[in-house]
Each structure stands twice: as structure tokens, then as C-alpha cells.
């Protein structure tokens, strides 16, 4: 089969993002990952929430579903239950994923839903012009915290590992090569693949100078199957580790659900009349 060119994955819709937004890096990495994997865009669905990142599906030539705030994961589950053959990539910001939608990550993770979930994490609410988010640091001043943020931020990596995500990684939009590599692995992973993609907001919380100072690669010696070791790296306050923290292999939700269906079906389709007769 002829190679699918990179350009095939792009639409001609111009992104609304501010020049210099980290989300451009994530989008570009997605194109490259799709190209590297030669994915059939007809069988792909991008599901997004609300926020700057929510606009992403329109920029990819594939099927897209731009849903309500915080609910990318339940919608992704519906898509996969309807058609497990589809490749589903859910994208959203840190507010969409950890604030309004925070209640869904634990369940997608423990079910091991076979999707890739990329959080474009900029530690702020960009689309509403700069308020604190669940990943903002203590002391961060913003529109809604003029005297400084008093709430401790969540730790996305530790959060995802705790709830049973089977692929947990962090990337940085400013390191495109590594980001492409992680997306490729995440899509290939059978199960719930979570990427905390640091994607700075140049307009309301510019961290381009701050991030690289703390950035470090996950050590080459790290055993990705060692959960305790993965937590140690996640909880490290000195470094912001980038790379794959944790990897686990267990049956996906769709596999398990479809196995149930096949077991039930193998007993033979019930006749409608027989179902009725049970109510005599």
C-alpha cells in the first residue's frame, strides 16, 4: 500500500491558538506520530473537551467529537464500545481533565479503556483569560487568585498511576522529538495511555523559561514496570521528569466486555418468543 503522506492528516482550518502556544507543538507531534504509525484517519476519532486544547480535533483530518467540558473520557468509552476497532485519542487541558472532569480519569484508568489521553497541561485557564487550575503552584497569582493561590496542585503522574493507568508518561511541547516518540508508544499501547504534555500558555502563564530548568529525562536505568520506583520519580520535587514512568500489561476494557458478549452470544441468540415465554 502506498504511504500516507504527512499532509493527509492536516486540515486547512487555521488554529485559533496564540502564536507561541504549546498546543502547536502537541498538534504537530500528533501529525508526525500518526504519520509514523501510518494510521488510517478514517478509523480515528479525536475526542476533546472545552478549553483552548478542545479545538484540536478540527485541525486533524479524522473524525472528531468536541464535547462538553470535562467529559472526553465517557464519550471516548462510548465510541470504543460501539466500535473497538477505532483508534481514539482524547485531548484536553488540565482544567478539563483534572478539575471539571477529574472524576472520570480514575474510572477510565481502572477500566483500562484502550485509548490515548493527552492532557495539554499549562497550569492555567487560558480560554477564560488566566485563572488558576488544579495544576497551578501554591502562590501563583492569577485573575481568580490576586493574592496568590492557596491550593496545593495535584500531581498528574502520581494521580494516573494511583488509579491504574497502564501507560503513564510526561512530555513537553518544547521537546517535539520525545513527544512524538511517546505518542507513538501510547497509541501502540493496548490500554489506557496517559500523557501529561506540558504545553505552556504564552499569553497568561508563560513557563517557557521556567520549565527547561527543571526538566530531566526519566533515567535510562528506570524500570517502567516498577510502580514504587515510578511514584518516586513522579513525586520528585527537584526535577520535572519527562518520559515513560510506568507501564503495565492487563486486558483492556473493550477486550473484557467483548469477551462477555461473545460468551453470551455463543449460547445462541435467544428467540424473541422464548424471552416472552419466560414471562408466562
Amino acid at each position: 500500500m502506498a504511504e500516507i503522506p504527512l499532509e493527509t492528516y492536516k486540515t486547512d482550518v487555521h488554529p485559533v491558538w496564540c502564536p507561541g502556544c504549546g498546543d502547536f507543538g502537541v498538534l504537530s507531534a500528533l501529525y508526525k506520530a500518526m504519520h509514523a504509525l501510518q494510521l488510517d484517519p478514517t478509523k480515528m476519532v479525536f475526542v476533546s473537551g472545552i478549553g483552548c486544547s478542545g479545538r484540536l480535533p478540527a485541525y486533524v483530518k479524522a473524525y472528531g467529537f468536541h464535547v462538553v467540558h470535562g467529559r472526553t473520557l465517557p464519550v471516548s468509552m462510548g465510541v470504543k464500545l460501539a466500535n473497538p476497532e477505532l483508534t481514539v485519542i482524547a485531548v484536553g487541558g488540565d482544567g478539563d481533565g483534572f478539575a471539571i472532569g477529574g472524576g472520570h480519569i480514575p474510572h477510565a484508568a481502572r477500566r483500562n479503556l484502550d485509548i490515548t489521553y493527552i492532557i495539554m497541561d499549562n497550569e492555567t485557564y487560558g480560554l477564560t483569560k488566566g485563572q488558576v487550575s488544579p495544576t497551578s503552584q501554591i502562590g501563583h497569582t492569577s485573575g481568580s487568585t490576586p493574592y496568590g493561590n492557596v491550593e496545593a496542585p495535584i500531581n498528574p503522574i502520581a494521580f494516573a498511576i494511583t488509579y491504574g493507568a497502564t501507560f503513564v508518561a510526561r512530555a513537553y511541547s518544547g521537546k517535539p522529538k520525545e513527544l512524538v516518540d511517546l505518542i507513538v508508544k501510547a497509541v501502540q499501547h493496548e490500554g489506557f495511555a496517559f500523557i501529561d504534555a506540558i504545553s505552556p500558555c504564552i499569553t497568561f502563564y508563560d513557563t517557557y523559561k521556567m520549565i527547561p530548568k527543571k526538566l530531566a529525562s526519566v533515567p535510562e536505568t528506570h524500570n517502567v514496570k516498577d510502580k514504587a520506583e515510578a511514584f518516586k520519580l513522579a513525586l520528585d520535587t527537584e526535577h520535572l521528569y519527562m518520559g515513560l514512568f510506568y507501564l503495565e500489561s492487563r486486558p483492556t476494557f473493550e477486550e473484557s466486555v467483548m469477551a462477555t458478549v461473545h460468551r453470551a452470544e455463543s449460547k445462541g441468540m435467544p428467540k424473541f418468543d422464548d424471552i416472552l415465554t419466560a414471562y408466562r
Partner: protein
Amino acid sequence: MNDIVFRIGGEGGEGVISTGELLTRALARADYEIYTFRTYPAEIKGGHANFQVRVSDRLLLSQGDKLDVLLAFNQEAYDRHFKFLKVNGVLLYDSDSFSTPPGINSCIGYGVPLTKIAVEQIGLKFSKNIIALGVLSELFNIPLEKFEGLISEKFKKKGEEVYTKNIQALEAGFDYAAQHVKKVDSYRLEPVTHKRDVVVMTGNEAMALGAVAAGLKVYAGYPITPATDIMEWLARELPKVGGVVVQTEDEIAAIGTVLGASFAGKKAMTATAGPGLSLMTEFLGLATMTEIPCVVIDCQRGGPSTGLPTKTEQGDLNLALYGGHGDSPRVVIALTSVADCFQGIIRAINIAEEYQMPVIVLSDQYLAHRMASVERSNFESVEIKERLRPTPAQLAGYKRYALTETGVSPMAIPGDVGGFYTATGLEHDEAAELSFESQNHEIMTEKRHRKLRMLEKTSNEAAKVYGLEQPEIAIIGWGSSEGVIREAVERAQEEKMPVGALHPKLLKPFPTQRVQTFLKKAKVLIIPEINFTGQFASLLRAHVSFEPIAQLNKCGGLPFAPEEILAKIKEVRKHG
């Protein structure tokens, strides 16, 4: 005439409901028509439970009015229900559980030592339920072999001993009544001569079955009374026909999963009660905006808030009609009977698919958990509709929201080559591209509402009239009150009153023309509703200009009895 109303009352969790179900099925197997009504405590153990079954050899439209036979397992059951017993009705009570009740002189009382027989003769305390069934069998001529058949099906799988004990209990009750109860009442069921091919099921079971017949493939839900058994039924049956059921983390996730599945091409549905529907309203707006078929069942219960979880109410009509932001067209269907639960859910899924919009189906606790005998023919000749899909020519230069005469556009699903689009809650144009232009918003809003207008004819045709087509005294009710109203109309007509009832099935779009025609000669309109404010009356006033309207509202968690409707008819006639 064979028409007896039985009520069984006792401690919750001690088998009152299953006893009632056995009685119901035995009667149905003996070819009687049955109609049940139950209330039960919100607690799992303890509290008071009761089960009512009306039996007749002709079509039953309601649970009836007063009781003919009250079976009281304890003092509380007597205290609660004795006042509903007819003069000269039968009180059957466990004489070991409480002493001779004071009302014994105004009824026919039979004390049976149910507990003593259960403990001493059978050696199983809870067998008093089955003993009571034996007593009922003997006293009212309910064929014993129907009970034996049911006990065999229910208990044989639990082992020979359990089965034998229950058969012994049944016979012990029968024998005790034959030997020790001197029958002085006149209730006796005469055998039905015409055989009927019926099944006995609850509203929730009929709905779940209807959904399967309509081609449901994905069900997502969150447990909530009184809708939970829809999910449990489907969890058992849907995988057998290749469908999947998922219990989500909340109702928001349930409707989200439904929309995801429908976006990807499968028929999908969820069921909930008022609190859950409240949570789903944001997603319903998305379903309207992205034109994705979906069905949401609301088994209404007493509200607001947690309210009366195990009691009935028609309080969610406003939420179903208006619950959402923006001009958000959706279809609202109210189910009217157990038979209609099957047909109505098929209609709902068909409309959702054909018109690519959310359909809210209103049931309630009264309908959800009542059993009725339904002719098998009700389940035949089901017409199934599928959503409009793009042709290969339409996929070249595909426009997801192409403007059409009906407002319905061909819907591509992932996997369709050339059908790429992003479904979005943001306003968009025909090609699904974002557009915030004022003219576009007007065009697309009108498109979404056009689909609703296309359904007006269906709504007008679906409404049913009972009694006079253009009555002087008009009644319009909705939902599960259909049978009760119809019975009241029949009785009023027997008394030569100029009465008729219209019962719509689609509430949105509203059957305006049909209502107008129906009201042409009316001098007064009665609107009975199980809610405090008259939510349907408000809806009607928004579409039809008519006065005077006599609202009949109650919200005590119980359905109407035919008597109450009849009393209102007489009242308006007198003052009319």
C-alpha cells in the same frame, strides 16, 4: 362478575413482594387479566411493603379503588390498609402476629395462624407467605396447580428440600382453610372460559425488551430507583444479541457514553430518574447541537432532590421539556401503560434515529414496577427505523449538516471514507465548520427545530381518545394515568355523562391540532396530574387557548384511583 382487588401488606424484606408476584402470575396463568400496584420502603430491610393485584376476566385499566381482600401479615399492615377495605370486604390476617383487630365487625375477618403453621408444621418461618397463598387458593378458587407450577419453577433449582417444604406450605395453607375457615364472603373467581395468550411483565421489563427489539446495542447507566432494573435486565439480555451494558461512574458519564456510542454508529440509550436527568441536561444540549440520536428514560419519582425515591410522581415534565440551555429542541414521549412501554420505547428509539435528536421518555414508579398482563400480539409487527446515512456521492464533498427539507442530514460514522467531520457543541455551518455568524446561527437553529415540526403530525396522530370524540366534559391527562382515566370515563359514560378523554403520547412536539379538535364542544377541561403545580396544564395553556380548566392535582406519591377522576367529573358537572 370476576373483579377482585387483593392487597398484601407486611414487613419489608420478608417476601411480601414475591408473594404478590406469585399470586399475580398464578392468576395470569389461569387466564385472568391482572393489574398490580406496589409500594415499598426506601430501606432494604424493615419498613412496610405492600403489593396489590386486581384480577378480572375483562380488560383491566387500573389498580381499582377499594380493596376486596386484605391480607395482613402484621399489625402495621392492618393499621395502614384497613381503611381501604370495602364494607363486607375480606380481612385475612396472621392471628399469631397480632390479636383480633378492632375493625373485624365491619368486614369479614378470617384469622389464620400463619406463623404457627410455618414454624410448627413446616419448620420454616418465612413459609408463612406460601401458606397464605394456599389459603387464598382455597378461599377464592384460584387453581392450586398454578401455584404448584410456579413454586416448582422458582424453588426446584434451590434444591429438592426447599421445593418440598414450599409445596408442603402451600398444601398446609389450603388444607387449613378448607378445614377451619368458615367461608361467609361472596368472593369467588369463576373459571375463565376463553384462553388468552398473554405475558406478565412490569413496565421496566417491557421497556428493556422494547429497546432490544428496536436494535439497542449500547446501554450505559447509573443505578437509581426506580430505573435500576432496566439496566439489570439489559445487563443480562443485551450481550446475548451482541450489545453491551456499562455501569458508569455517574449519570453524566452515562449520557456521555451514550453519545459517544451513537456518534460511532450504534443505537444507544440510558435510563434514570429525576436527579440523574438533572445531571444529564448539559449533554442533552450537545446531542441537540451535534444532532446525535439518543434516548433517555426518566422513571419519575417524588421530588425535588432525593425526594420520595420509591414513590410515584409526574414531576419531571418541566425538566424533560425545558431542562437545558439555549433553544434546545428535543422530543418528549410519555409512556401510558405496560403495553405502551414496549411500543413507546421502540417509537422513541425510531424517532431518535430518524430525526437525529435526543428523545426523553417519561415513565414513573407506578408504571415502572407494576405488572400487567399483555397480549402477545402487542409484541408483534415492530417497525424499526434507521438513521439516514450518506450515499457515496454525498460523501464526496460531505456536508454533515446539509440543509434539507426535513432538517435531517445524512450522518457519516467513523469508518466511512470521506465522511470526516468534527461534531462540535460550538455553532457550525452545513459543513460542520465553526461559524459564529448571526445569519448562520439563525439558519441552523431553524434547521434543528424543523425536525421537531416534522413530528407534529406524528404527535397529533398518536394521541388517543376514550369516550366521546368531542365531549362536553373533556379530560386530558398524560403518562401512566391513561388506564385510570379511561376506566373513569367508561364508568361516567355508563351513567350517561357527556365525557371523553384525550391522552397524548408525544408531549413535545405538542399535539396542538388534535387537542383543539377534541376541545371544540367542551365546556370544561379536567387535567389530572400527579404533581402539585400542574406542569402539563401549563404546557397545554402555552399551546391552546381554553377556559375553564379544572386541574386535579395530587402529589402524595400514589397514583390516581378511577374514583377520584370520576368524583372530579361529577363535581365539574354539578358546578358546570
